[in-house]
């Protein structure tokens, strides 16, 4: 499982790092950074929720 952000879609809203700090953090310029690139099963539900909540459809979970 791999958590990725499509930079061409991301609008730097900060929603992902706000609601899922266990998976993302924010860079000094406001960009999101994936904290856990390969989340384990215990983080699957959180990662799926993050994919859903991104208002720009920029987050994907690749199996």
């Amino acid at each position, binding site marked *: 499982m791999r958590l990725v952000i499509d930079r061409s879609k991301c609008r730097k809203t900060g929603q992902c790092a706000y609601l899922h700090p266990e998976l993302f953090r*924010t860079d000094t310029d406001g960009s999101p950074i994936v904290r856990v690139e390969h989340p384990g099963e215990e983080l699957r539900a959180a990662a799926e929720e993050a994919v859903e909540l991104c208002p720009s459809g920029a987050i994907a979970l690749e199996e």
Partner: protein
Amino acid sequence: MIREITPTTTPEQLRAELAAFLADPYPTYRQMRDQTPLEYVFLPPGIAPGIDEPMRAWALMKFSDVYNALRDHETFSSARNPLVAKGIFPPLVLILDDPPRHTRFRRLVNKAFTLRRVEALQPWIARVAHQLLDEIGSGEVDIVRSYTIPLPIRVIAHLLGIPEEDRDTFKRWSDTFISSLVSIPLEQRMKNTQEMVEYFGRMAAARRAHGADDLITALVEADIEGESLQDWEILGFCILLLIAGNETTTNLIGNMLNILVDRPELWQQLREDRSLVEPVIEETLRYESPVQQLSRVTTREVVLSGVTIPEGAMVSVFFGAANRDPQEFPDPDEFRLDRDLRNHVAFGMGIHYCLGAPLARAEAQITLNAFLDRFPRLTRGTAPAVRQTTSPIVYGFQQLPLVLHPREQRYAFSH
């Protein structure tokens, strides 16, 4: 509007100045932006009980200041709004809240407004859009009254599970709520809020008794870590959707059609190449932002663009000015589709980033496609287009007459 208020300023003068600013705030932004952050008179004394002194606020108009303030919710609080403390604004959930309560609530309601949920709703929205256009037909029409107002209201009413016949009342509540204190007195606003609270209270009670497939039922039944939502939270959220989801979308669609009616070549291009629909919507959001300004209060002393703003100060975040900042958007006063359109702040940024952004974008997209399908040409009507000038928050039209030119009918008459 952004100036000192002298003891000789009459209420009539003030009203006229405010109306001129609200009808076209862009010259003021151009003139003021370099001097911001700058303190100005936000509300004049005597405008409501409890406001005996001029209420001041710091205006932010530079893109960088606006973005930084929106991303720093610990310093720029949404909950400490003095208008709430004075009873002028009801304590809205979410938008006038800070973490941790904001976080808990946002997690819960996000689920109802995700891109995926909105995609599922699109065929329904398209049906409503086409129904409204069927009723209009063609020829001259005030598009605000007959399309841009009813569409978002029907969508929100549908989501909440509100009966259609209550739609006009909805519109009145929403208008009164976002109007400025200069135009609608406090007493009338309080009565308005009271009516909304009673109405949604009845709705929530009805859903508790008999659940339905709608958002109010979802809120009534919500379980957040073993806790359910309190009544005032449910009512607060219904009221929030009513005011945050209607006028804003009405204005986005109106502003967009107003821009396109003067660009017949772009209209033709759009008809042939629908990949331009999205950039047109995003550039409209930047160029004529439906939400122009909202407030924050500082929780500590903070420096923006070298200017020190003290703790406990009210701050006006001008989304509309930031979106025309030449530092961020070259030739900001030109409507252009070749920009990086991900950067505008028309939906805010940070923790309060608009919950309804995917929904608003879908309504605009469905609308533009439906208009392009039906009307080869769009021209101005004979009656004048009139900007709304009662609310300092939103930017859009009160009246926008358009002539919708139908496709040529080709009947084969045989003699």
